[in-house]
């Protein structure tokens, strides 16, 4: 498997090309099958390579030069080390399941081939991002996934709202990407200036060796390492929807649900976390940057959770929950617990993918209805979806022994105990954990339990999803339950597989003390599960039966509720303070800048002056011969005067 690394990204690419070109001629189902198989084989190769990496260490596959100009040498090189192995496994694994799910979900859609072409193209880009050996190639994948998310969000482009959601996603990502490029350039030029012309290389291994250089040289007051780390983090914020640049993710729900599952839950949004873990040597060398990452992560988690609790659209709830869980991952990475960040990333891919696919199946059944207030009592008609949905909800809430419990517990512990963390972060994390449990079970309860609030006609069409959709649900449910095994804490006598597996990737790990005694660990786990159970219980108690009571509470705190349900008016603020002034300024530039100043005063001004001059000189021509004679005489006088004066007479 060592030399077949390049096949992992190439297979989905070939699949995408097939769907886009040849697939158009063949019946619909062929494109679907080819796409699924492509990702399937890629998954097989990925798992094989991952196993090879587990046995023999990292694999590198060089495929020639991309740009070679003077100091800048960027090769098309792929490398799989433990971190990439995990990510590849997640991307291809979950990706494959979602592709299978999509076969059913998109069966009746006109753009079937186009959908699968984009999905495969996305997988290709994500794999390039994950396997890239140098930063620019990572950036290629980075923008590639941004493009695919643009194409897939705006998949049903007839609806202008959906199309503009896609555009919004791409532009916000682009803001992050611009900062990312700046970070890359800073790293590159610091090396070149330090080591002479030949020294600039953006390979991760080279960057790793030169990390001391980044910590010493300073630029504008801070060390280069900090500035670069922060710039790359802004890029990560753009891609992983963290606080300042998260606005595109809720709108991204305009895309088909499997897309939301794959891109906006499992893979793309985690790219930011992967990048920071990949550049862990840079971050560990820049404590200030790590603090920023941690605090932004924690505050995003809480902020998103606060909004999620009042959302009525099932996909919006899951979207904000994703943002919140990503906040957790950034919190983990921010305090130095890189492996627990990746562990949570993996488990999150399982249960969030499950939840999204479940939501998809619900929407599919409810013939497009997404408002949970109009659902209810679906447990009767959609048994499998209901069970798997509740398993997912329990996992994310942190129900003991499920995957979410272990990964979130590890992060909260690290947040508290890590030298880079602190009790404040723990409080934020804890609060978010409670809120997560609450809004997840609120959503599940409203959707599945109690009496059905759907209209008669919708209720009539209720039906369980076809097996091609239910099967992935079951598989993901199993993974959500079993996923915790990957990172069992020491207390339960298991070696933390994920921690050890990622050991070689982390260059200078932050020392996070383990709980001294098993008792302390058990105590800690008990406290965490207590918080989760409280949240769940309160939600289950409140929602299916005491809906009126919930409405009354909402009524009493009207302003707070309105604030949260309207997403703290962030979109409106952006529109007011960014988009409109920009548009106004451009209009001013165009109409006044070009119109009046350059064209008006400049061009037409000079033209007017020339015409004026022309009229002035022709006005001398009165047609009267004696006036011409006077003009001549005056000219002669001037010449005479000049001669005499200059000739030294006067």
């Amino acid at each position, binding site marked *: 498997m060592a030399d077949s690394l390049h096949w992992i990204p190439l297979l989905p690419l070939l699949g995408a090309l097939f769907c886009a070109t040849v697939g158009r001629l063949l019946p619909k189902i062929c494109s679907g099958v080819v796409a699924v198989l492509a990702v399937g084989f890629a998954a097989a190769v990925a798992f094989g390579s991952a196993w090879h990496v587990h046995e023999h260490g990292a694999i590198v596959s060089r495929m020639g030069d991309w740009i070679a100009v003077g100091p800048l040498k960027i090769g098309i090189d792929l490398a799989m080390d433990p971190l990439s192995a995990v990510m590849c496994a997640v991307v291809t694994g979950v990706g494959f399941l979602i592709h299978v799910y999509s076969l059913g979900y998109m069966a009746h859609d006109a753009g079937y081939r186009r959908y699968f072409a984009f999905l495969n193209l996305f997988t290709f880009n994500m794999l390039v991002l994950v396997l890239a050996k140098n930063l620019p190639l990572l950036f290629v994948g980075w923008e590639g996934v941004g493009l695919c998310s643009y194409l897939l969000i705006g998949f049903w482009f007839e609806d202008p709202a959906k199309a503009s959601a896609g555009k919004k996603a791409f532009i916000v990502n682009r803001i992050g990407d611009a900062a990312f490029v700046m970070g890359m350039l800073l790293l590159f030029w610091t090396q070149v200036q330090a080591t002479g012309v030949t020294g600039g290389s953006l390979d991760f291994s080279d960057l790793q060796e030169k990390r001391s250089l980044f910590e010493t040289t300073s630029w504008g007051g801070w060390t280069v390492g900090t500035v670069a780390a922060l710039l790359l983090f802004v890029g990560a914020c753009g891609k992983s929807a963290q606080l300042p640049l998260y606005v595109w993710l809720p709108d991204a729900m305009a895309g088909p649900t499997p897309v939301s599952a794959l891109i906006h839950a499992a893979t793309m949004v985690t790219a930011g976390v992967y990048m920071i873990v990949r550049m862990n040597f840079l971050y560990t060398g820049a404590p200030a940057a790590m603090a920023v990452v941690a605090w932004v992560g924690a505050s995003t988690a809480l902020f998103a959770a606060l909004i999620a609790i009042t959302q009525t659209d099932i996909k919006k709830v899951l979207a904000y929950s994703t943002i919140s869980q990503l906040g957790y991952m950034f919190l983990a990475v921010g305090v130095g617990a890189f492996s627990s960040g990746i562990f949570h990333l993996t488990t999150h891919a399982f249960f969030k993918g499950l939840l999204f696919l479940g939501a998809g199946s619900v929407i599919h059944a409810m013939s497009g209805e997404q408002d949970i207030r109009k659902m209810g009592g679906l447990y009767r008609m959609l048994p499998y979806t209901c069970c798997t949905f509740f398993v997912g909800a329990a996992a994310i809430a942190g129900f003991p022994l499920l995957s979410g419990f272990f990964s979130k517990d590890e992060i909260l512990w690290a947040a508290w105990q890590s030298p880079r963390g602190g009790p404040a972060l723990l409080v934020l994390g804890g609060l978010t954990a409670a809120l997560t449990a609450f809004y997840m079970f609120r959503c599940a309860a409203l959707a599945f339990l109690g009496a059905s609030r759907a209209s008669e006609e919708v209720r009539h069409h209720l039906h369980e999803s076809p097996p091609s959709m239910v099967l992935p649900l079951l598989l993901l449910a199993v993974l959500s339950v079993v996923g915790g095994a990957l990172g069992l804490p020491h207390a339960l006598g298991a070696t933390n597989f994920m921690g050890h597996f990622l050991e070689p990737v982390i260059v200078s790990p932050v020392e996070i003390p383990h709980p001294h005694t098993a008792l302390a660990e058990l105590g800690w786990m008990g406290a965490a599960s207590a918080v989760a159970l409280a949240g769940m219980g309160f939600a289950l108690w409140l929602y299916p039966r005491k809906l009126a009571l919930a409405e009354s509470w909402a009524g009493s705190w009207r302003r707070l509720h309105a604030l949260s349900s309207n997403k703290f008016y962030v979109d409106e603020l952006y529109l007011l303070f960014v988009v409109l002034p920009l548009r106004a300024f451009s209009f001013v530039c165009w109409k006044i800048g070009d119109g009046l100043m350059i064209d008006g005063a400049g061009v037409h001004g000079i033209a007017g002056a*020339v*015409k004026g*001059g*022309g*009229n*002035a*000189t*022709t006005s*001398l*021509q009165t*047609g009267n*011969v004696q*006036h*011409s*004679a006077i*003009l*001549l005489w*005056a*000219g*002669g006088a*001037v*010449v*005479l005067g*000049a*001669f*005499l004066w*200059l*000739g*030294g*007479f006067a």
Partner: protein
Amino acid sequence: MPISPQDFWCSSPILILCGFGTLLLIVDARCGKGPRDLLPIAGLSLFGLLAAGAAVLLLWGEFGSGGVAPVECFTPMGGMGAAIRCDGYVLVFDAVFLLAAGLTCLISLGYLERMDLRFGEFFALILFATAGMMLMASAMDLVVALLSLEVMSIALYILCGLARTDLRSNESALKYFIIGAFSSAVLVYGIALVYGATGSTALPDIARAASRIDFARGDLLLVGSALIVTALCFKIAAVPFHGWAPDAYEGAPTPVTAFMSTGVKAAAFAMFARIALSLFASYTIPATEVLWLIAMLTMIGGNLAAVVQTNVKRMLAYSSIAHAGYLLVGLVAAVDRRQTDGSVTVGTPDIAFYLIAYTLMTMGAFAVVVWFGRRRREYLLIEDFAGIGFRHPFIAIAFSIFLLSLAGIPPTAGFMAKFGLFRSAVATGHTDLAVIGVLTSVISVYYYLRLVVLMYMRETETGITPTYSPATTLAIVVSGYGVLHLGLFPGSLWRLAEIGAQTLAW
């Protein structure tokens, strides 16, 4: 030294033209005023011009190439110095005058027929005017210069007023005459003062006298040269003295306008250069600064005025004023170099080349204006030329070539001429003149291209109709080829002008 046969041989072109002129008058007296009667007279005049051309070529073989020292002829016994001189410089300019006269005759044939101006005298006067020009170019004595100036001017006053019944032609002749007479009177007085200061009217003597440092009568010489400069500036229609030009050019019959703006301007500059390079040989007379000022005013004034014109002839009049400005730049360079280290080969060859190129392109432009026109009616407004771009493709292309050349856009002779002129200006350090020159030529691009715009980009149903006259077409073809050939390969002709210029000084 009495008048020797060599004197007659040196001045043979002038004599041939005068001879043919009088012959024409006699022949005209005999033939009537019928429609086809002008042909023999025109033929004869062309033949006369060709004969003079042959004489010029033979003389060039002898004198022009610098092999043999230039000859000074008709030196009166007791008098001042030689009257005229035959050297490379004169012969180059003679070629220019013959070219202008020849093209004018070609153009005027069809024109006179159509406008009922069947006067045999027209061709005679053209020949006499050309003879006057040749005399001007070769004048070695201020008085001879004055007289040759008058010979040419008198012929032109009559030519302007040829259409007796047309008020405009009459008025143009009158204006030209009054201002002309006024300036020749100023010239006479100027010559008198210069004679008073230096004791002789012969240019070499003046040059020697003026360059002696202990020069007592400096003030008289200054006033005299100021008056001479004024009179000559009138002749080349430099801005402060250009009052007469637009009206004279617009009023006169079109072939005469063509002849005036090309031949007359060339003769005026030939004489101006020769006089200036001798009168201002010494540094005491601040000619460079004065000419610099006049050049600046002419370039700017000429171009600005042309922008607002609506009549094609009047626009071409102002454009010829503007071109006088560019030529003055060459003259400033020549005088500046003459005053610093006495050499005369900077500037003068560029002036000669520019005049050849200018003659070709202006003649071409006027030929096209003449080409369009019907019985007793001419199309002179700029708007008339709308839409002919695709209706008469060949003429439109020719007219565009002439306009581009006048504007100085590269593939044409106009560009090479301007390049040479500004090259000599920059050589003598007058970069500011060159900058003003190029900027004003951008203004000229506007009003020249306005015609191209009208021809190609304005759509009209009823376009103007031409009357086909083979002679005018020939004139257009000759000048068109000349403009393009000089545009791409100016080298050889410029070399001729340079050889001519070397023999200018004495």
